[in-house]
């Protein structure tokens, strides 16, 4: 009887797999493809350097970022003792840039991390349960969407007052709404697939299905989108600091530095744009890395 039931007649495992190929999980495949992309690797390298410098700033920075010197104001690049010159109060530019990275990069990454957690939770719940739950969550999100992001950030920061934490909060709110939408739409797509129905049919509870089936499929979409927002967050945070709604001086922060160097733009233009260049490099690297991540995630092994 078994002979006519055609056991799936595949040759044994040794022949089936191409020689040298080991079984990869999805994330291992993503990592492997990402590591083969030169642009992503270069950007990742630069970012790692920046972040490491920021974390180990006390050991990496050559001088004290707060030490002013009226005699050494706006020194150009290459001045003895100041590799990148000094700012308008005579503080070492390189050290301030390194210390500034702490705040600016933090303001880029942390709001996104928070927004991803909260936004995904809302979006997945809205997408999975549909109906009234979906309506309530998404309409509230729509209310937040009614405001342009910069305006919303400025408004919230203004209402909460300046300071690191308030800035973080307002940025997190701005990005949560976008991630909620992306998570909801991704979940709605997955929700109707047969394998989710099959999981329901086996009697699995909703949290079980969300964790076991939905999350594994939407996480790549959400992560790709979230990573593309990091650069926006850096720029937005710098903008808030520029407007005086973020960190207060004399803390080093790239946006703040742009503001305070603004008046010197005709006198020492190179010095004035240096913080802007750092913002640019960080944003571009995050963007390119995010692109690379998306490509790596899309391809099936």
């Amino acid at each position: 009887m078994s002979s006519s039931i055609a056991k799936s007649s595949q040759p044994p495992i040794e022949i089936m797999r191409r020689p040298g190929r080991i079984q990869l999980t999805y994330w291992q495949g993503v990592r492997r493809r990402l590591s083969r992309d030169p642009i992503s690797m270069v950007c990742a390298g630069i970012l790692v350097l920046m972040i490491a410098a920021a974390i180990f700033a006390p050991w990496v920075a050559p001088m004290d970022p707060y030490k002013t010197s009226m005699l050494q104001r706006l020194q150009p690049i290459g001045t003895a003792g100041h590799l990148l010159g000094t700012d308008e109060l005579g503080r070492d530019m390189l050290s301030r840039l390194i210390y500034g990275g702490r705040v600016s990069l933090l303001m880029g990454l942390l709001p996104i991390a928070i927004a991803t957690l909260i936004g995904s939770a809302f979006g997945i719940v809205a997408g999975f349960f549909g109906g009234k739950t979906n309506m309530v969550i998404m309409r509230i999100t729509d209310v937040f969407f009614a405001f342009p992001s910069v305006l919303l950030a400025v408004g919230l920061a203004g209402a909460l007052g300046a300071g690191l934490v308030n800035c973080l909060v307002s940025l997190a709110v701005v990005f949560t709404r976008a991630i909620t939408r992306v998570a909801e739409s991704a979940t709605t797509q997955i929700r109707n697939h047969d394998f989710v129905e099959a999981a329901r049919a086996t009697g699995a509870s909703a949290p079980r299905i969300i964790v076991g089936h939905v999350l594994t499929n939407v996480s790549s979409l959400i992560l790709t989108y979230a990573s593309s927002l990091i650069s926006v967050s850096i720029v937005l945070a710098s903008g808030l600091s520029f407007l005086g709604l973020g960190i207060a001086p004399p803390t080093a922060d790239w946006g703040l530095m742009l503001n305070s160097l603004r008046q010197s733009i005709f006198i020492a233009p190179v010095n004035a744009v240096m913080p802007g260049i750092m913002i640019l490099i960080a944003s571009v690297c995050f963007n390119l890395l995010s692109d690379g991540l998306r490509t790596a995630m899309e391809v099936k092994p």
Partner: protein
Amino acid sequence: MTAARPGPENRPSPPLLDVRELSVRFFLGGTALGAVSGVDFQLALGETLCLLGESGAGKTVTMRALIRLLPPTAQIAGHIMLDGIDVMGLDANGLQAVRGTKVSMIFQDPLTAMDPVFTIGSQIAETVVCHDGLSYSAARVRALELLDLVQIPSARRRLDAYPHELSGGLRQRAMIALALSCRPKLLLADEPTTALDATVQIQILLLLRELQRELGMATIFVTHDLGVACEVADRVAVMYAGRFVETGTITEVIDSPRHPYTIGLLGSTVHAGTHNGLLTPIPGAPPDLSDMPPGCAFAPRCPRVVPVCNERMPELVEFEAGRQARCPRITETEIA
């Protein structure tokens, strides 16, 4: 190389379509995938050829290669003569002149094959205006004639309908009308009834048969369904892994199949006579085109395999007039 088959009038006429050594390769990320290899056939006016095979057999790719409707990653090689025109030598303008006029195609899913923002009347009229140079109002009259030809009820009202407003069967008829608008000599049909319900499918198949008779077109049908082949085909070419494995008239192939794949296909098709038994399926699965075995592509699944099958690809041999098969064992008298 088969001689030109006589047309239905039994008078030798030059074939409308003459295909020799057609092969299609896809280039994906540096590697080449051979989708179709060494396809030869001829088709006369009024004849219907069915390309029969399962998924991955290369039948759709073959058909699309005839009018070079393939993505840029595809490389077509070979010789295609259509009504005296060398299709491989045409430039973009030449291709555009041929498509829609000499040869037309109908697709499996009319909803995606027609533009959703234009009414079917305007889509048909647009084709007529573009190819035949008629005025728009004359083209609309022709569109109405065509809708009547494909037996769409209330045709005048339907001229102004959008594709999504029509039911599946009506949409398919509209697509057929669109394809016939410039009186093509060759009609290519890519699984046109697969997505339709049974009662509608038979209507469309009979319509196509009737139209083909009336207008004297040559038709190529791509299908995986043996029943469709039995209903519409004069000749059938069974494809497996990009090659023809058996050809002949439909009656000959159904009555006395020679290639083990064809035999297996007939044995595993569920039809009215198979109740209360077990089917005899073909073991294994269709091959992965990127990982083909040396020798005959069907050898891993073949019940009659012998060592020579794994050494090299068998030739397509004409063992009777108009009958070909690609198997070294067909010349044996007994079917072991």
